Structures are given as C-alpha cells and as structure tokens.
C-alpha cells in the first residue's frame, strides 16, 4: 500500500453525483434572459465561387434580429497553428467543402433562425472539387488555397541517422502500406455555446470546449478585442477527444451576433453539423520499410505518409509531424527517415483526435513488426522486448523516455492473458494478438510560439479555514481532471478530499492550455501541487509564529496538524476559534489541532491565504525543423493483448477479451486511470472494426448520424482487464504522467495481429468490416 492519504486511491469523482442525478449543467441546459438563437448557412457544394449573397429576405423574416456574413465578420485569418491561419469566420469569395460557413442568423428562436437561413440566397459558380489525396496531388488539380500551392497544407522531411544505409545493412527488409479511414469524434454532446456581451463591451463566451485558453485568444483576435476583455467559461462538457480543442465557427458567429444584437446568443451544432465540423482523425496512408538484423535488432525505418486534410489546416501541421515522430519509440531505433504530406481536399477539415497523428502509424508499424517477427521465427513479444528502450533512453529524434514501464506492461498483459498457452495454439477462427505504444504527457510547446506558462493554478483557503478552493483554467471534459486536481491539492495540503472544492474551465482563473495532448495531469497537476504547497507553507508559517514552533517541525496530514517533536499546547488557538464562531454547532472538539483552526489563524495573521502555482516544461527536444512536435516532459506507454473470434464465412470479427496494461507513472485516481484505458480501447476498437466517415461523389457525408457512423455498443465491447503499471515519472507531480491517449495506441494493431492469428490474413486497410475480412478470406481461398 502506498503512503499517500488521498492520491493513488479510488475515491469517487467529484462531479459524479451531479452527473448521476441530472444536475450537471451542460451548455444546452443553459439560457439567459432575452437570449437569441443562431443558425449557420453552410455550403451545399464542395467547391465553388460565391458570386452573390442576398440576405434581404432573411432579414425581413419576423423574429430575425441579425444576419451576418463576411462583410460583418471581416476577413481576419485564424486557425490553430499561426503558420497556417487559413480560415476566416465566413467564406466571402469561395467555399471549399460541403458545410463551409457563409452566413449566420440570430433570431428569437431556433426555428426562426433556421427558416431565415433557408431564405438567404447565394449564387455559386461551381468549381471542380478534389475529394481524394490522389486527386488533390495530381498534376493540374484544382487548387483550394492560392497561397498553399499543390494543395499542400504541410510537408515534413526528416532523417535521423542514415536509413538508406541501415536498410542496406539489414538482414531482413519489410515494406508494407497501410490505410485508415477518416473518423468522427462522436462525443455524445454536440458542441454549443452562448455568447454574452456586457454593457462595457466585455464578452463572456460559455462554450462546450476543451481549450478555453485557445478559444479566448482566437475570439479576441478575430473580433479585434484585447484578450482581457474576453472570458471563456466552460460548463460541463460531454466529451471532446481533440475535436473541441480549438475555436469553431459556431463560437465565433455567436460572439459576432451577440455583439451586433446586444443580446445573448446561443448556437448548438446538430449531429449532422458535427460531421461537417469534423476536426477529427485524418485519413492516413502509410508506407513503411523496416530493416532488422537476423536476431531481431531494429536498424531502420523509412516512412512515408499522406494525410487527407480536408479544406483547412486546423491542427494538421502538428498531425503530420506526430505521424512520423511518434514512431521514434518505444523501441531502440537508430535510423529513421520520415516524409509526410498533408493534403487539402474539398471535404470537412480534419484535426486532432485521441492519439493525435500517431494511431494509424502505430497500427501500421506494430502489424509490420509482427510480420517481421514471424519471418524471423520469433515470438512477437520477444521481438519487442529485445528492442525495448529503458528509462532514460533518448530516441533518435530526441524524445527522452524519462520513465518507461514498457517491459512491465508487456509482462503484465502476457501473464494476464495467458499468452503462452494461446499464441499460435488457438483453433482456426480464433486468434490472439498484441502490440505496444506510447504517447506524450503534454506537448512540450504551446501551439502558438510563446514563453507562456502552460498553466497556472491558485489554491485559496476559505476564511473559516474549512475549505480549500482550487482554481485553474483547465478543462474537465469528462476525463476526471477536476477530481485529479482536487486529490493532488488535498494530498499536498494534507487534508481530505471532501474539504476541497475544485473550480476550473474559466479563463478568469488563470492560464491553462487545456485538455489536449494528455497534458493536464502532469502539467496542471504540477501547478496545482505548487499552489497547494505555497498555501500550506503560509499556514505553517503563521502557525509557527503563533505557537512559537518552527514550521519545519510541523506538518499537515489528514486534516490535522502534526507536531513532529511531541505535543504542543494549542488551547489558545482553539479558544479563539470557538469564540469567533459563537453560535456554530460544529466547533472543533478533536484532541488534535485541526487544519481548519490552523488556516483560520493564518487568515487572521495574513489575510486571505492564496497559494499560486505554475508550470511550463523545460526546453525539450532537438534543433531540427519540427523538433518540437513529439516532445514532452514524459511519456506514458502501454501494451495490449486482444483475443478475437472471426467468422470465416461472414468475415465478422467478435472481440472476446482485451487485456491492457498502461504505465501512467503514478495513478492519481486508480478508477479514473482504468476508465481512460477502457475508453481508449473502445475508441480504438471502433476505429479498427466499424468507424468510417463516408462521402458521396459530391463531397457530402453519407453517414452523418450515429445510426450509420458506428460506435461500439455495449454488446460489441468485450470485457476489458485494465492493469495499472506505475513507474514513478521523475518529471510528473507525485510521479504521474498520461493515460488519456496512449492507451489507444496498441488497440488497433493488437486487433490486426489477432485477426492474423485467427485467419492467416494480413489486412492493411481499416476498418475491418465483415465485408473487408470476408473479401480477404475469399481471395485467399481463391489463391489456394
């Protein structure tokens, strides 16, 4: 058992009671007096010039309060990476995908706003569209953005060591190609927001976002406001998974409409619009060549990747870098060459989704490693263990594995799944497979170039001493970060969790880059810990003064003051406390000095006790172009074993069991760590087997609902065994690092490897629908 009083336990989440009873307030549960409702006019064509926009009919519709287009919004360019600010709020000359926004309406109710949108007349001159990577890269292809020729949104060319030479020196060289499909975030809560201007011109945007800070900056920039006049507040958020990590058009339009009308304006994305907003996982096409020695030692990886980006860049530059850099580990790989191209197409824009950039690459490579192991006559686990890095190793692209419980993860899943008695021994149609993966615990650098702290936190003690208030601008979006920070604050201060109140998701509470790149536990956790330490110090200092006991001789544990050198008479403090709370019925009676009394004394001595904390990572990574992407203060890692049953006639795959071990450094909340692992596996399984956003030849999403875009249901999901591995990360608060995204990394390749074990077939394209598997089975039978 650990020495910790609060962390590393299974305390229920702080927000669970509100969510279990329907009390938790999400954006669509909110309203303001006089609130208007907005609707967006979106392009029905994938690519066209806008010849004329006539809003007069819409403006005349009773109930309509404002209609805005690019004329009102201006043409401020924004996006995610400043190097690719390629969006404007509304299109003024050209639309680039079905769903590109042209105008917005605010009206007394949603029905009227939608009706008004239907009355806006737009004359288009249709342009030829490019809907695939091949079409976009073809000679003479229609161009989406004049300033980014050849439809290249970004390209990457990196080489570490000398891959070509290393391949020549290899005993076995294997080349495979791999393709995934475009995903949808498919969070249960569609994004929405309410923009409210006060009479002094200050804007408060309530939004279902996972990055209040970035939204604040984008809104301020686009509306031409100082950052200090924009406040972004996040209510409870129904999942994000990366898609809600940047400002969206709905937010910007609502702000503009609120400014124009002087009324609060609400906008909600419909489920169909979520598919048009997209910003989710790209389609990647990978071609990988790996060279190994006879004994399995990895020598080189030569890797090319093409990404179907959609109409704008969003997070895409980071995505195309991650797709390469995240193969630097966890295996010792001395030579790596990577060439990546992210291509504009006339489709909704892809962005970041759980496992940003690395998921398809990991799937492709981990399947290839299994193929290599087989050709070398090695057990796939042995091949991986042979090449595994150790804590302290640095990858060829300068990522520092400051802790790495990879070996422990592999051992754990091997034992728990009974790998040895199953691998290669299951009847035809049944299979077992494994894979590994790792991921950042927060990006080493912010998305815009800056020396900013990545997060700040404040811990304030209530004047009666009874409550610890933790403030940060971090984003609880369902992953459990509020609870983690409450636990970190409680552990640090030495009080029970129930005396902590956590407030977050408000840019007025500080700076926090938000919930993406699995950064909050490590980064915001550091800031909260530092803030709590500062508050604790002030309490002990005040107590030292009052009791004439050196602060170093005291500590706080479980809400009581610990005197290290024997009992101290604190009756004076107690009498004072009781006197000041005459009429209260809960006077301290304990035979020890309580934290409540101590922090009251501190308040009386110094005024409100406020501790502040901050965090930014040290300078990380190499000096080469793009070296920042992939850097992190720490890396989480995991290993998975998947067992499948494949119907050899229908091609249908049933996943029977998943065993996952994840090194999260130190579990702040054990239940939440498992919950992240289980959720990651479900998302990975969906991507492996079912999920694919499909388009018709006019660039329209065919399956833009949750009936035809298939998430795993409770019937599809197998039992999951989640095993926590703790490696005590030196750069993490209490040794903690990520779990939110890394756990998805091995899922797809473990399934692919299990399907091979069951069928003898290597499938290099996702999803593994029954039809795709059956076609492969049929082709294999025909060959025989």
């Amino acid at each position: 058992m650990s020495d910790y009083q609060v962390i590393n336990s299974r305390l229920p989440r702080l927000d669970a009671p509100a969510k279990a009873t329907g009390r938790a307030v999400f954006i669509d549960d909110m309203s303001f007096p006089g609130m208007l409702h907005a609707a967006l006019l979106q392009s029905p064509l994938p690519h066209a010039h806008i010849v004329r926009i006539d809003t007069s009919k819409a403006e005349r519709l009773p109930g309509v309060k404002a209609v805005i287009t690019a004329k009102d919004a201006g043409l401020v360019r924004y996006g995610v990476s400043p190097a690719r600010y390629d969006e404007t709020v509304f299109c003024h000359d050209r639309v680039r995908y079905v769903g590109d926004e042209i105008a917005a309406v605010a009206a007394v109710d949603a029905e009227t706003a939608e009706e008004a949108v239907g009355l806006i007349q737009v004359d288009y001159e249709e342009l030829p569209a490019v809907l695939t990577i091949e079409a976009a890269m073809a000679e003479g292809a229609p161009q989406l953005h004049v300033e980014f020729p050849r439809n290249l949104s970004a390209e990457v060319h990196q080489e570490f060591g000398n891959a070509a030479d290393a391949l020549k020196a290899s005993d076995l060289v294997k080349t495979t190609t791999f393709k995934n499909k475009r995903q949808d975030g498919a969070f249960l809560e569609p994004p929405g927001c309410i923009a409210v201007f006060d009479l002094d011109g200050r804007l408060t945007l309530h939004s279902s976002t996972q990055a209040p800070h970035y939204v604040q900056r984008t809104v301020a920039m686009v509306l031409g406001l100082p950052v200090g006049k924009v406040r972004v507040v996040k209510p409870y958020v129904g999942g994000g998974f990366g898609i809600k990590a940047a400002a969206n058009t709905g937010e910007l339009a609502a702000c503009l409409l609120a400014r124009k009308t002087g009324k609060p304006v609400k906008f909600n994305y419909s489920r169909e619009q979520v598919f048009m907003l997209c910003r989710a996982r790209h389609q990647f096409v990978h071609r990988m060549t790996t060279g190994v020695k006879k004994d399995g030692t990895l020598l080189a990886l030569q890797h090319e990747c093409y990404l179907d980006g959609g109409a704008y860049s969003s997070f895409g530059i980071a995505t195309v870098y991650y797709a390469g850099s995240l193969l630097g580990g966890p295996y010792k790989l001395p030579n790596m060459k990577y060439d990546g191209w992210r291509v504009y197409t006339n489709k909704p824009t892809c962005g970041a989704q759980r496992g940003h950039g690395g998921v398809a690459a990991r799937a492709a490579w981990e399947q290839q490693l299994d193929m290599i192991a087989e050709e070398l006559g090695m057990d796939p686990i042995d091949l991986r263990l042979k090449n595994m890095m150790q804590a302290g190793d640095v990858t060829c692209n300068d990522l520092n594995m400051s802790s790495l419980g990879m070996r422990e993860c592999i051992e754990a899943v091997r034992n728990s799944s009974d790998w040895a008695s199953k691998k290669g021994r299951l009847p035809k149609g049944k299979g077992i497979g494994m894979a590994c993966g790792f991921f950042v615990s927060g990006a080493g650098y912010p998305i815009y170039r800056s020396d900013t702290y990545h997060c700040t936190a404040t811990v304030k003690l209530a004047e009666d001493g009874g409550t610890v208030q933790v403030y940060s601008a971090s984003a609880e979006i369902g992953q459990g970060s509020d609870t983690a920070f409450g636990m970190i604050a409680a552990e640090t201060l030495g009080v029970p969790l129930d005396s902590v109140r956590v407030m977050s998701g408000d840019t007025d509470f500080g700076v926090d880059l938000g919930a993406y790149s699995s950064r909050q536990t490590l980064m915001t956790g550091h800031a909260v810990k530092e803030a709590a330490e500062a508050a604790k110090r002030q309490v002990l200092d005040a107590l030292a003064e009052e009791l004439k006991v050196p602060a170093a001789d005291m500590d706080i544990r479980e809400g009581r003051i610990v005197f290290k050198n024997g009992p101290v008479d604190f009756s004076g403090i107690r009498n004072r406390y009781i006197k000041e709370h005459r009429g209260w019925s809960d006077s301290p009676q304990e035979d020890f000095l309580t934290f409540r009394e101590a922090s009251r004394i501190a308040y009386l001595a110094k005024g409100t006790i406020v501790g502040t904390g901050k965090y930014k990572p040290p300078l990380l990574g190499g000096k080469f172009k793009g070296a920042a992407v992939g850097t992190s203060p720490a890396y989480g890692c995991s290993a998975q074993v998947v067992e499948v049953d494949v119907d050899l006639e229908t091609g249908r795959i049933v996943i029977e069991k998943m065993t996952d071990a994840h090194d999260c450094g130190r579990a702040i909340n054990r239940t939440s760590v498992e919950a992240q692992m289980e959720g990651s596996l479900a998302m990975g399984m969906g991507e492996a087997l079912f999920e694919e956003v499909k388009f018709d030849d006019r660039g329209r999403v065919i399956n833009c609902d949750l009936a035809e875009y298939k998430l795993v249901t409770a019937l599809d999901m197998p039992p999951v065994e989640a095993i926590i591995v703790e490696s005590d990360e030196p750069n993490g608060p209490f040794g903690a690092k990520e779990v939110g995204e890394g756990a998805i990394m091995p899922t797809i390749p473990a399934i692919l490897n299990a399907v091979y074990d069951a069928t003898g077939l290597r499938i290099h394209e996702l999803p593994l629908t029954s039809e795709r598997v059956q076609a492969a089975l049929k082709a294999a039978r025909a060959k025989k």
Partner: protein
Amino acid sequence: MILPKFEFHEPTSISDACELMARHRGEARLLAGGTDLLVNMKKKVLNPKRLVSLGRIPELTQVERSNGTLWIGAGATVSAIAASAMVARDASALGLGARALGTPLIRNLATIGGNIGSARPAADLPPALIVYGAVLVLRSVAGERRLPIGEFFKGPGLTAAHEDELIAAVVIQVPAGYAGAGYLNLGVRKAQDCNIVNVASYLELDGRAEVIRAARVALGSVGPTPLRSPSAEAVLIGQKPTEALFDLAADAAQRDCMPILDFRGSAEYRRDMVGVLARRTLTMALAEARSRN
C-alpha cells in the same frame, strides 16, 4: 432538429382512424411507433400535413392465440413480441427478428405494423412473417380485407395498402409439428444496425420420414422488397434435409436475390451472405422442426 408542423389526430378506435384516413386521404400519414416516420420528418425527407396516431387504440395491441392461429395486433410493440413466450414457442423466427431490431429503446416504441407498413427492404420482421405465410388484416372505411404478406411489399416504402388503409393485425397459422424456422441478420455491429443481409427460412417435414414437405426462404436487404427464393424452395421440397441439400439451396437463394451496392455493402458481399445465412437459417429451421414433434 425541428419537426415540420403538422395537424395531429389521436383516434381511439380502428374505425375512427379509418374515418380520419379517408377524410384526409392523400395528406395524412399513420404514426405508429414513430421510429421511422419521425426520423424522416426531422430529416425533412417526409413532410406530411397530418399525422394519425395509432397509439391510443387498445384493440390494435392484442396478441392472442386461438384455434391454431396467432393474432398479433399491428400496434404490438417489437419489445412485446420479442418478450412474448407465445411468439417464442409458435413463431420463433419472428421472435428472433424482433430481438434483432434496432435497440431496446427503439423496440419499446416500434410496432410490428409500423415495421411492415414502412416497407423498408432491410426490415427485421418481414422475412420471418413471409416464411410463416402471415396474412395481413387491412382495414379502411370500405371494410376489412386480408392480404398475404408476400403480396404487400411493392418497393422501398411502397405497399399494396390503399392510401386510407391501415394494417390492423398480422395473422399467422401456428406451424404444425415437424415444422420450424430460423432467422439471422448481419449488420456491422451487434445492435442498432441497418441490416446488410437478413434471411428467414422455414421447413416442414413429413413426420419422422424427414422428407421436406414445405420450404420457404425469404431474403431481406437484397432487393427492393423482401424476396422469396423460389429456386431455393424448389431445391428443398421433396428432399431429405442434409448439409449438401442446404448448400444447394443456399446457392439457389443467391441466384434469386437482387442485391445493389450501397454504402453499407457491395452487391457481391450481400450475395455471398445470402448463401451463408440461407444455409444457417435452414439448419436452425431443421433443428426446430425436429424438436417440434
């Protein structure tokens, strides 16, 4: 998503419902469970001026057995059919179809009449009803008529019902001894799917001699309507049931289907799966037939 505006009627008897449908001929639609109609109205695919709800007509929800006949009111919910011990015993393939349909939430709303009346080619209940030789009881102000379900479907969303006619009930002759049926559906995941292929089969054996006296095979999702497979049935009738025979029947069923390619699946895959599911449902039907003696 906002529903378009419409006038709403909630009659409490079949005859009142018929009256309303006659009065508003051409502009009224029947609202049963709403799981198909309301979705299409929200998506602006359908925009009826009036809805006549069947939700408050008690006589539509009867499920009873008398004189070897199973009478299922059109308003019976799919979950009621899925949970019915009587259906499980007397028309097991229908029960399997009901269990396969949508989700528990959808099954609690959707009705058997709605599942038939909306005439979706991939619907879960029609194949079983077809192989059981179900007869639909149709009502209108003109009176009652009975129509074998096989003659009801005319195309996707199209039926032989007149504009002012409603399905009042489905009648199934309870299969005799040595008769059994099976139903299987194949989608992408295990719940909430639009079928890629669904097949029901029915076999009636000549007592212990085990010669197939009657056989019916119905194929869903592989044509504009659920289809009977006369070729498969011809292969089966008069033969002893064997694996080899079922393989031949499965091949024949593949020849009878008319699958199209759409985003859910290719024609080739659907055709292949017709064979697999036909064989498997025949095996189920045989097992049940042998157990019912």
